[in-house]
């Protein structure tokens, strides 16, 4: 363990990091959109466009469907709360912040599940076919993605002998440049799950409202104004969480282990660079892939699960030794 300053400073840093995380999430979404437009030869929106969109939505008045109950109104806050909490747990700039101990990787998956559960319920609250369709598809995909994700998490957990994110990152940081096949498999699996869970191509298309193919958009069709803003913001945070997880677990270099100004500045620069690069990879992936038929998605996720399983088995058989 590195030298930990007094708890108050650590908690303050943790709070600052969480706020930074939440504030930076729309920026990452804007960056992805911008790079994508450049890559597809379209005119790109400004980098801060997502902030403008959120500000516009927060300023509007809410229109709710006639049949909406209290659950529909409460869901955006629950979803946002769950993702803020998840963001607090994920190490971004510095490892070993006290918030990281609140929840480990399994609990993190639990937070995602909590948000999804309420979002699916809210979708069914109105009583339209779209809501039910979105909820049904989302829960189907999630029920296949979640085990694949946990399997990848288990592989990481077994390599580092912990499910604590900070400790996993620290382990990978100090293990040096060892090419472990199990880590590679886990990375691939986690990336595929991330694509499915954040609703990117080829599983879902964040830019479409085509009625028969949409999943996430079908669930939030009835939301407006501040409720919609919270949900949009939450899904931007979700994208950033997955990106930060992949970046910091598999390429932990640069993350601050000590709470000094130099280390923190280095950490900030490092994570910004890593996220920007990851976003470019995502954009290339989204540009070269076509959207899948819904019933091909289980095969996609089944493959992710298989990769994660292979990663775990290679770890158990090859890397620990009998």
């Amino acid at each position: 363990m590195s030298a930990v300053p007094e708890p108050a400073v650590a908690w303050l840093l943790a709070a600052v990091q969480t706020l930074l995380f939440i504030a930076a999430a729309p920026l990452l979404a804007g960056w992805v959109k911008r790079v994508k437009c450049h890559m597809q030869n379209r005119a790109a929106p400004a980098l801060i466009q997502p902030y403008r969109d959120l500000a516009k939505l927060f300023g509007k008045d809410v229109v709710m469907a006639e049949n909406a109950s209290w659950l529909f109104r409460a869901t955006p806050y629950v979803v946002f709360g769950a993702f803020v909490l998840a963001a607090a747990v994920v190490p971004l700039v510095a490892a070993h912040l006290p918030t990281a101990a609140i929840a480990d990787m399994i609990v993190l998956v639990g937070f995602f599940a909590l948000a999804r559960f309420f979002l699916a319920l809210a979708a069914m609250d109105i009583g339209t076919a779209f809501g039910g369709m979105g909820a049904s598809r989302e829960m189907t995909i999630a029920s296949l993605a979640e085990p694949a994700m946990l399997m990848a998490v288990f592989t990481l957990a077994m390599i580092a002998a912990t499910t604590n994110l900070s400790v996993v990152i620290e382990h990978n940081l100090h293990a040096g440049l060892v090419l472990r096949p199990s880590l590679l498999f886990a990375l691939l699996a986690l990336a595929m799950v991330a694509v499915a869970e954040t609703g990117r191509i080829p599983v879902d298309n964040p830019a479409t409202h085509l009625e028969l193919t949409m999943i996430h958009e079908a669930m939030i069709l009835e939301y407006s104004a501040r409720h919609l803003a919270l949900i949009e913001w939450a899904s931007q945070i979700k994208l950033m969480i997955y990106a930060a997880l992949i970046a910091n677990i598999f390429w932990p270099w640069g993350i601050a282990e000590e709470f000094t100004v130099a280390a923190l500045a280095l950490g900030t620069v490092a994570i910004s660079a890593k996220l920007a690069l990851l976003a470019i990879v995502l954009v290339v992936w989204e540009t070269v892939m076509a959207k899948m038929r819904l019933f091909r998605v289980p095969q996609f996720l089944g493959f992710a699960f298989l990769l994660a399983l292979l990663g775990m088995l290679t770890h158990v058989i090859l890397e620990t030794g009998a």
Partner: protein
Amino acid sequence: MALNIAYLAVIAALASAAVALGADFRRSGLARIAMFLLLGVSGVAATVAGGWALLENLKLTEQLALGLPWLHWHLRLDALSGFFFAVVGLLLVAVSLYGPAYVRELEGGKQPLAVLGLFTGLFAAGMLLVLLADDAFAFMVAWELMSVSSYFLVTHQHQNAPNRRAGFLYLLMAHVGALAILLGFGVLAGHGGNFTFDAMRAADLPPLWASIAFALAFFGFGMKAGLVPVHAWLPEAHPVAPSHISALMSGVMLKVAIYGFIRVSYDLIGDIQWQWGLAVLIVGTLSALLGVLYTLMQNDLKRLLAYSSVENIGIVFMGLGLSMIFLGTDHPVLGVIGLIAALYHVLNHAVFKGLLFLGAGAVQYRTHERDLERMGGLIHRMPATAALFLIGCVSIAALPPFNGFVSEWLTFQTALQTPKLESGVLRAILPIAAALLALTGALAAAAFVKVYGVAFLGKARERRAGHAREVPAGMLAGMGLLAVLCLVLGILPTTVIGVLENVPRLLLGQVPPSLTAHGWLWLTPVSAEVASYSAPLVLAAIAITFFVGRVLLRRKANPVRRGAPWDCGFGPLNARMQYTAAAFAQPIRRVFGPVWKVQEQVEVTHAEAPVTLVSGIRHQLHISDWSWFKLYEPIGRLVLAGARRIGRLHSGSIRTYLMYSFATLLLLLWIVT
């Protein structure tokens, strides 16, 4: 003293049965109140006695002058039975709050309430006595009291043929299971010298006989607990009983079977072999996964809940299996964590499944429906029931910060300690089991989104659901008690585990200090480095973001306007355009196709004039359980064929019968000489 309170619990339950038998329900509501009051007293006494024994790690034994002349009833209350005693007690309290209003509806029915009250009391007393028994004879008598009285509860509304069929199947399976348990006790008693549990504990079994005793106990108790593939009676029997009885059966009776399993394998047999653990883990994983897949396909609310009990019992057995593997390979610390995970899930499942069954009863009370496809929009009509039911759904879907999550998380943590095992095969199998548990959890969330979304949200699909009213306060109180427990057990896991630790302390003699080492705020199963979870902080953080968000956004916002939902411009939507329960589960049905036996028929009738126009579509969907066709029916056919063969002996002629007697006599004489 604790033992006397335990007696009071049993006596109060019996008194409740006696009151029911003697009273005249048609004349006054007093008898109804008295009946449930006594049941409540029994519940409180059981909770107090059990909790006391668990907290203080008491070991109280006594002999009663009942039973056989040479074998008096031995009774014993220790931490293990105390824990289960408290679980039964808690549910009895909730049911006694809920019952008086609920059974009103049954008063006008064909069956007298007296029968229901009588067998409810006997059933409760039977369960409590099983937990107290300290010799095989008392155990089996109490076990039969529990099984037979619950048979009468299952067949309470016996005018419906399916109920009679379910009841018969239940009775049959209960006795096949009881036979296996009896044989298991026989093996133990054969080596121990007599039927007291003390003698069995002291006996030193050779490994082969220990394995046989274990296999018999696993089969017998597993059958009663509803493990796959011998689970088929459970979704038949549990839903047809009145709902407060379903809550007791699914919530507690299955737990009594788990108690029996733990008592026999951990306590009476003692030396646990890791191969047993592997068998338990595999069966548990299968039960969990198949249970949840069948849960997803049900459209009958109570049947769905019953299948979900199969799933949750599977999760409990996964915890037990992991614990036994670690104990068998000499990792006692991890074995203890697995056992605690299993016990925690026992408690959690009792609480949330009780809550959900009571909720289903509340819905049935007002809408007279069990079919999800006929409900909808109940959140507007029954807001309090809807809120309580939501807590049950969130808990059973294993979402933080509620209680179901904690026990599943502990099970995961146990499974992740596999690198400590020497055997490569075990190291590979355990994480796969964990991954299947993850799949189970995710599918359970899907199942309960379906339940809640179809039954409580959206618009009312039938008139009766549209006219439902909130249920009486007593019923809400019963559900409310369990809902509060769901939250408390979820956010104070460390405190709960501190209490539960006395069970492994009794059974295994040691407890790792790490579980609760970091105070009530932090749960750290192995060490703080390896994993930590702080449920209170999670709750606090969710609450803070929730309220900050609301306060910030609500301050200057205009009131919410209401408008029509998006209908694609085709005109107003109606309730029949909503997604149905079957439609919700369709993608999952397609993904996991071969798991069920699906018969689907679509008949399309075409209109007269333009043939392309469709005038009507009829869709029929039957989803059945493979275990019927692959296991039950072949065995049933085999038994019938065998009976027919033996039946040929009955020729009907007296001379043949005399010849049988004569031949038997000769044979016996020959043996004797």
